């Protein structure tokens, strides 16, 4: 990872000084320290990682993808030459984005189904702009210098929910049902390794190498996972969304990978999102 050498050096220097301070309570972000204390006393490594993330968040290339997403959202495109801004309802009215991302997945009466953000955007692109669903699903995830339009669009939509409380509705029977399905998929053990999502994400204090794995069945864990997506991954310098994250979890479990914007992913996102309800979403994030 030659990328972002400046930031790495800064973080390395900081970890040296921070290790000495580790015995004292973290001095800068008091609120954050409290929130963490509620979980468990953070060890020095965790504290260092938090510090590292704070430094990185100051200049997040996710903003560049938001800018691209804005262009795509407002432009008249597709065979029907329609813009998403004038046609797409993300749950708060046509073209209204403020606070939409923190209330998704939700029930949409026009399709009689629960949809997450990315699935809804894909739906709008197919229904109003006339794109083909197969084309959107052909290469749906970022790699190298390639960023799918849907990734930029999702980042743009998510950017409108910065610092807002997560409030995913659970009123409609289908919303409740979707949550329950998500809960079941989360616990469903299968595949050559007999894994389920909860094998890694159903207990506190688990990790893969240095990567802490949030326990998604608790509010503290669910917010850690909801937070930071869509996220800019420094490894490779690409922007990723929750669709990619979920897909990659299936791949790592050696499950068959779900279809792009599959209802099963909506169910999982609903389970995770509802568990995170009431907490503040910081906006598109940055990842190691």
């Amino acid at each position, binding site marked *: 990872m*030659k990328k972002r050498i*400046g930031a790495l050096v800064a973080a390395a220097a900081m970890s040296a000084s921070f290790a000495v301070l580790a015995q004292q309570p973290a001095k800068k972000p008091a609120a954050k320290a409290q929130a963490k204390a509620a979980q468990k006393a953070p060890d020095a490594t965790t504290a260092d990682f938090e510090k590292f993330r704070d430094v990185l968040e100051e*200049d997040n290339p996710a*903003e560049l993808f938001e*800018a*691209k997403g804005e262009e795509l959202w407002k432009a008249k495109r597709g065979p029907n030459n329609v813009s998403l801004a004038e046609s797409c309802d993300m749950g708060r009215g046509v073209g209204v984005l403020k606070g939409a991302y923190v209330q998704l997945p939700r029930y949409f009466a026009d399709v009689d189904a629960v949809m997450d953000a990315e699935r809804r955007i894909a739906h709008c692109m197919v229904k109003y702009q006339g794109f083909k669903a197969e084309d959107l699903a052909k290469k749906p995830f970022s790699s190298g*210098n390639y960023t799918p339009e849907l990734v930029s669009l999702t980042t743009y939509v998510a950017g409108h929910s910065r610092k807002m409380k997560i409030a995913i509705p659970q009123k409609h029977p289908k919303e409740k049902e979707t949550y329950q399905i998500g809960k079941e998929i989360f616990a469903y053990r299968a595949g050559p390794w007999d894994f389920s999502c909860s094998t890694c994400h159903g207990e506190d204090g688990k990790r893969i190498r240095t990567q802490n794995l949030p326990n998604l069945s608790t509010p503290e864990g669910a917010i850690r996972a909801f937070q930071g997506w869509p996220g800019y991954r420094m490894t490779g*310098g690409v922007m990723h969304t929750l669709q990619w994250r979920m897909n990659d979890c299936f791949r790592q479990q050696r499950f068959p990978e779900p279809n792009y914007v599959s209802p099963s992913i909506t169910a999982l996102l609903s389970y995770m999102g509802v568990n995170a309800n009431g907490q503040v979403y910081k906006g598109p994030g940055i990842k190691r």
Partner: protein
Amino acid sequence: MADPMKIRAQMKGDSAEIRVLMSHPMETGQRKDNAGNVVPAHFIQSITVDVGGKRVIQGQTGPAISRNPVFGFKVKGAKAGDKVVINWVDNKGDKRTDEATIS
């Protein structure tokens, strides 16, 4: 056409703190794609920064800089309302100029 930069310029005490985020692949020319072909080098070669009509930075950059790079610097003697003009040129001759005002 290259994508726009994000420029943040703020007075902090007696100097201006300027941060700029550029959208660029910054290919080193040493990587290979899945087919084994070398990905051609493509990186920003020169950067200039003008504050209030005065050139304050003229820099040369190379392939060791990250994709979508961030640059931050402090400029003494600048004042709120000064115009910041940042320009880059890459090795393929592509270029981009963006402006911001110090707040």
